[in-house]
């Protein structure tokens, strides 16, 4: 087990190094001028030259990469060309908002997708199945930004049931930052009013972001469970006289968990893509919005920082998913 984890960690370092190299090559080999983007169209040539000199943009590509990697190994991702502040501190400020949104979206996706998939499998071919499959099909094809616009218009503007964009009301005082997650920080500060405000602000964006994942989870849970339910050991369990709920809970769900787990791991990528679009519409101060603004202003060090953090998160999530396989299926050995 330990050897497996160590081998995977070594592989993860290799992949992340590849991500830095890929991001660096793409961002530096493309014909664009970050200096002009940062200084504006009216900047004089000497101002641009000074900017390039200050930010090391006039050095050879290989030298720039060696400098970048040297900084990175010391935990420094460089300075944002746009905000002129450290990228690590920028990411520390923006990442928690995305993390909180994504985690709540995953919770919503699990709460909706798993039961719907189970219901669809148990009532295969009947109205509940049809409804669940329709949801799965529509959820997988609806543009997340349109869903976000519709949700905001209906539940915020028309019905007034839920608050609009942002993490908190303008009148709410943000809790002292410990984790950067509003829900946890407000609980740590014993501030229930801010907790509820934060939670109400999270509902719409997290539901919108989680919709695609919920749809995919419904599909996967349904098909995995149907596959398991047709196995001989389920027939044996039934013929032994076990109650349907015991057959489902003890035998079927656990065995159907592996394919669902695989999907959960791969969903992470689509959640991040969705987060970029959802954050744009809900004015959510996360790394999605940060990445968009950075890309527009050709702030490549910042884009590389976001790419690296996203790559790291993706690799960690997939490692955890692989390790979880062993929990659900003890036959899997990590040798």
């Amino acid at each position, binding site marked *: 087990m330990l050897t497996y984890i160590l081998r995977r960690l070594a*592989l993860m370092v*290799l*992949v*992340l190094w*590849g*991500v830095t*190299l*890929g*991001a660096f090559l*793409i*961002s530096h080999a*493309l*014909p*664009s001028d970050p200096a002009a983007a940062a200084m504006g169209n009216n900047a004089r040539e000497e101002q641009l030259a000074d900017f390039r000199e200050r930010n090391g943009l006039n050095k050879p590509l290989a030298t720039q990469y060696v400098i970048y990697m040297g900084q990175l190994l010391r935990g420094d991702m460089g300075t944002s060309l746009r905000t002129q502040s450290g990228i690590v501190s920028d990411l520390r400020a923006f990442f928690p908002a995305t993390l909180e949104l994504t985690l709540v979206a995953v919770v919503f996706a699990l709460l909706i997708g798993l039961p719907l998939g189970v219901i669809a499998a148990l009532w295969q071919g009947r109205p509940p199945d049809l409804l669940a499959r329709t949801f799965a*099909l*529509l959820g*997988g*094809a*609806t*543009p*997340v*930004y*349109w869903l976000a*616009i*519709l949700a905001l*218009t209906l539940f915020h*503007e028309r019905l007034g049931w839920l608050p609009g964009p942002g993490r908190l009301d303008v009148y709410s005082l943000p809790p002292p930052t410990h984790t950067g997650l509003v829900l946890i920080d407000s609980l740590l500060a014993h501030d229930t009013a801010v907790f509820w405000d934060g939670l109400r602000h999270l509902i719409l964006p997290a539901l919108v972001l989680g919709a695609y994942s919920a749809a995919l989870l419904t599909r996967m849970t349904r*098909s995995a469970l*149907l*596959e398991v339910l*047709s196995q001989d050991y389920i027939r044996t369990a039934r013929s032994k006289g076990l109650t349907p709920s015991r057959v489902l809970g003890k035998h079927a769900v656990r065995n159907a968990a592996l394919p669902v787990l695989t999907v959960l791991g791969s969903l992470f*990528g689509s959640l*991040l*893509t969705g987060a*970029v*679009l959802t954050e*744009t519409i809900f004015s959510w101060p996360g790394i999605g919005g940060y*990445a*968009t603004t950075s*890309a*527009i202003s*050709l702030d*490549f060090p910042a*884009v590389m920082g*976001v*790419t690296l953090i*996203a*790559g790291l998160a*993706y*690799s960690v999530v997939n490692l955890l998913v692989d390790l979880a396989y062993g929990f659900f299926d003890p036959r899997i050995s990590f040798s």
Partner: protein
Amino acid sequence: MTAALTSESGTGSAVWRRFRRNSGAMIGLVLLVALLLIAVLGPFFVGSPSAQDLAARLSPPSSTHLLGTDQLGRDVLTRVVSGSRISLGIGVSVMLASLLVGSAAGLIAGLLGGWWDEVIMRVTDVFLAFPSLILAMAISAALGPSLTNVMIAVALVSWPTYARLIRAQVLALREREFVEAARALGSSQSRVAFRHLLPNSLAPLLVQGSFDVGNAILTAAGLGFIGFGAQPPTPEWGAMVSETRNYIAQAPWASSAPALAILITVLAFNLLGDGLRDVFDPRKGV
């Protein structure tokens, strides 16, 4: 091609029979044929997508403007129909480009093995760990927002799936008798690849391909929505939703029509992909 499908999933007519019995797949196919007809013939029957009638801005659907007009008085139906060419074009081009690059990489990795396999697989690992939309945004921003750059960007993040798929197929097929027989008869590496391995991998490629056209359309429309894709006044569906989003309360048709067009197109490709998977692998048709 028929021979390949025959050996893996039944005769051609049996495959078609199974496909016809699959209602989802048939709905997908009919929708796709309709969309293709609209994309190919539609623009000949509607006017210019940029024609403005400021007096009729934000008009609701009527007999003159079947899907209403947008904030500049442009006919929404005309723009949606013209946009179908763009979106389908992006989806199919991206899929073909990723399929070509990915299949070549997968074939090399699977056939040559050793270091080739190791290096190519690690490169796919790296690309899979890349946040696709952010990578696409960076490329579009640096090269300048345009449709071509969107296609390059989306293809760049889509090819690894095909590489892995083909590699897995090659590894599974290369020990089979018919491949060994071809080798024993003196077939060259490339003949084995193109005459035997690739045709027998067609079924999973078709399934993945149809899902990927839908995915590419969604990603490209997402890029268009945040301003990295086609620029106004190009009637790209994602950009159209973005341009009209502030008018959703007064004129919901203006942003809903292109959004529904994206939804229906992606739905059609997903239904087709689902159907093809069930048809080629009946065990999964649960």
